[in-house]
């Protein structure tokens, strides 16, 4: 250990509420190093047995992407989404042509 005083910095904490859940951001703790950061994460986000897993990472190591040109580019991308395929009219025309009714949700 050196003589230079350590620096408190923010560590982000992600938590998993129960088995199978995704990791979700919970908040942050200030700590001088990884060992104490893990302790403090357990305290602030796990002392009530409310988490089954925690991820702890220095804020400076989190890569933040929020550029709208990359995440929300302006041209149409509906071909990548379910809402981009509207077939109501075509299906109505097909049923009229075949004389079939719209299929029931359950067979028979």
């Amino acid at each position, binding site marked *: 250990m050196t003589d230079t*005083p*350590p*620096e*408190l*910095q*923010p560590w*982000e904490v992600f*938590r998993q*509420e129960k088995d199978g859940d995704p990791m*979700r*951001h*919970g*908040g*942050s*703790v*200030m700590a*001088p190093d990884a060992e*104490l950061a893990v302790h403090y994460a357990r*305290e*602030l986000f796990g002392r009530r047995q*409310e988490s089954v897993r925690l991820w702890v990472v220095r804020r400076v190591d989190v890569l*933040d*992407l*929020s550029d*709208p040109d990359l*995440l*929300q580019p302006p041209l149409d991308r509906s071909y990548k989404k379910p809402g981009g395929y509207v077939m109501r009219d075509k299906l109505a025309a097909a049923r009229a042509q075949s004389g079939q009714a719209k299929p029931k949700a359950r067979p028979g």
Partner: protein
Amino acid sequence: MTDPLALDPILAPLERSRPAFNDDDLSHDERFAAFEAHVLAGGKVEATDWMPDEYRTAVLRFVEMHANSELMGVLPEREWLMRAPTLRRKLALTAKVQDEVGHAQLLYRVAEDLGKPREAMFDDLLAGKTKFHNVFHYPTVGWADVGMIAWLVDAAAIVAQQALRDSSYAPYARTMRKICWEESVHIMHGRDVVVTMATGTAAQRAAIQDALDRWWGPLMQMHGPRSPREKDRDLHWRIKAKTSEELRQEFLSIYVPRIRELGLVIPDGALAWDGAIDAWRYGEPDWDELRTVVTNHGPMSQSRLDFRRVNREETRWVRETILGVAVAA
């Protein structure tokens, strides 16, 4: 089980359209107008967004006072930790006071991420430049106070905090959701202590009534004087959503019946529901007392600030050598 709303990711949600106020090419006035329109339309603000100075200052002041209040609010109850009369009450009260410390941590983190270092906030609190809520300037004289504070002071606070869960400043809103979930346990603990004493010995019942007599005034002052909605900048910026009077009325509607069902007498002869105006009438709170107290002239203001000052000095060596001091965010 945690409320999932408490855990939204810190990255901006994908549904947001491009916020113009973050565009460096626009003029300040254009950015201000875009920001204001965004907030008034219900849009949220993150720590990394551009903010007008007025908004940043308003949020910081609001969050800082809240953080200070959690920190100072620890002190009235802390002395009773050592005096808890059963193992279970000891555990419950220690956990409750621990939660207040945890809330202070969460709130100071929000304020730190707005640009003010924690040590600077402690400096300002101890110098009297920033404030903390009135209720934490009063003495606690017995175990009955412990129950009364945990029940009614926390209840009045949670009424305010629930209204903050949709604050325009998203980090604060998320913190409020976590805090509200944790506070609900405190109120149950407080009510349990009060009900137990109210149905206990004659001396215990008398102590509970005495505590209510002393705390009712500060409770009625806690949400602040009535002020017109249009003049409130914190409401304008959607930092908060309800007026002082709305919060006070909500508190009375929920808690007056619960206090009376214990056979306790509320020390305000003028307190009555008025169906004609759909609101509670009550004796005018002493706003002079509120002003005196929050400017640190309350019965315990100086001794509690002194206590914090001494304790901070006693532990300074740990921060300067082992824990470190945070650099500005």
